């Protein structure tokens, strides 16, 4: 019997990520990891791409992982876990090791997923390995100093798309990786956020039980890169959801389903104004960027509603 998805029952489960890791106070990534691992009752083996999560949890000689865990390089979490999963299947098939219902997971940031890691991810899911790939999307290469990624929102200041005198922040709209993964026609794809923990956990369970490759894109607020208070993580994550910048949905065997509809769709400006990385777009000469971002958020939201049969 799977652990009931109530905080009380879940809190009885062993902590598979120990305290004493060195991610920033208030980091979204470890909240996500804890929620995902709490949702999974089965043993897990994790491949982790280079990034905040990997570095912060395994500074030699310390490791915060109480489960088997491997870091290989930046762009290859998916190919690394492919190898681990294939080894398991091969050795079980040959009777060398017993069948143990291990869930194979890959964790990577948006850097190791949208950009440098996209090839390995695409290849791994096409091959049908049974694993769940979780992208903790904080919208930039945070670990190396907040450089832009293809997941960075339009207009955001990053250290490689700075808000300068001539160019005010990132000039491109972000990649829709969740849709790209849905286009791989794998059994399960979802977009989630830790502020909606129950939705995230239900999705996690569907993902690990789908019998094939699964992908979850999870919004991870970074108080350092986004410039907000360490205690605002959950609130700002939820704002991203309520402005429909980060809709929560799943694609299960090709069926698109909205799993959360904000009671009142908030203007994206309410999310932007809470973060220092968008401060410059509130200058009069840049305000058009807010409108442009709003238009794009609305366009994608409308499209999602159509896909989910909600409009």
């Amino acid at each position: 019997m799977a652990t009931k998805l109530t905080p009380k029952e879940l809190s009885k489960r062993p902590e598979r990520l120990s305290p004493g890791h060195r991610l920033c106070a208030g980091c979204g990534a470890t909240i996500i990891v804890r929620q995902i691992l709490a949702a999974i009752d089965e043993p897990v083996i994790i491949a982790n791409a280079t990034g905040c999560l990997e570095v912060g949890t395994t500074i030699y000689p310390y490791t915060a992982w109480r489960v088997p865990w491997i870091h290989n390089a930046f762009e290859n979490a998916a190919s690394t876990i492919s190898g681990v999963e294939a080894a398991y299947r091969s050795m079980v098939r040959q009777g060398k090791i017993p069948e143990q219902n291990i869930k194979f997971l890959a964790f990577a940031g948006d850097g190791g997923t949208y950009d440098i890691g996209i090839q390995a991810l695409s290849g791994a899911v096409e091959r049908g390995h049974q694993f769940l790939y979780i992208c903790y999307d904080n919208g930039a290469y945070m670990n190396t100093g907040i450089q832009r990624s293809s997941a960075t929102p339009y207009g955001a200041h990053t250290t490689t798309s700075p808000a300068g005198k001539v160019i005010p922040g990132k000039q491109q709209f972000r990649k829709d990786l969740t849709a790209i993964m849905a286009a791989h026609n794998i059994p399960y794809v979802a977009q989630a956020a830790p502020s909606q923990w129950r939705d995230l956990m239900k999705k996690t369970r569907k993902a690990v039980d789908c019998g094939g490759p699964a992908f979850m894109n999870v919004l991870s607020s970074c108080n350092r890169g986004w410039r907000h208070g360490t205690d605002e993580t959950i609130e700002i994550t939820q704002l991203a959801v309520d402005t429909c910048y980060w809709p929560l949905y799943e694609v299960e065997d090709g069926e698109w389903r909205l799993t959360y509809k904000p009671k009142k769709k908030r203007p994206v400006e309410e999310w932007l104004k809470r973060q220092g990385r968008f401060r410059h777009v509130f200058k009069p000469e840049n305000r058009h960027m807010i409108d442009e971002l709003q238009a794009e958020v609305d366009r994608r939201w409308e499209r999602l509603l159509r896909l989910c049969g909600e409009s």
Partner: protein
Amino acid sequence: MELKGWRDIPIGGMILEAGNAVEYLTGGWRAFRPVHGEAECIHCMQCWLFCPDSSILVDPENEKMAGFDLEHCKGCGICASICPVNAKVIKKAGEELARDDPRLCIRMVEEGKFQE
């Protein structure tokens, strides 16, 4: 931890003691410390769900929130920000409360006040 020689550590950079990061006390990072206030905890475990540092202590037998792991808590304040009892207290007060207001369930108090 004392620095070891190459003969005394596992090969290949492997770390064989799972979760030994507990020995690294990140509690020293804190500028603010979570402290229980007057409002009674309802043991909803929301703080446990949202703590980035696995630093909410739980008494699983009695299904109760049992306190804060102060050796590791970094004082981010997320627990206080999402605590539903805090929200109730603030609503009742009808105004913004200071983070260390004694009426709250989880208060964030300046760490400096606890140093000897």
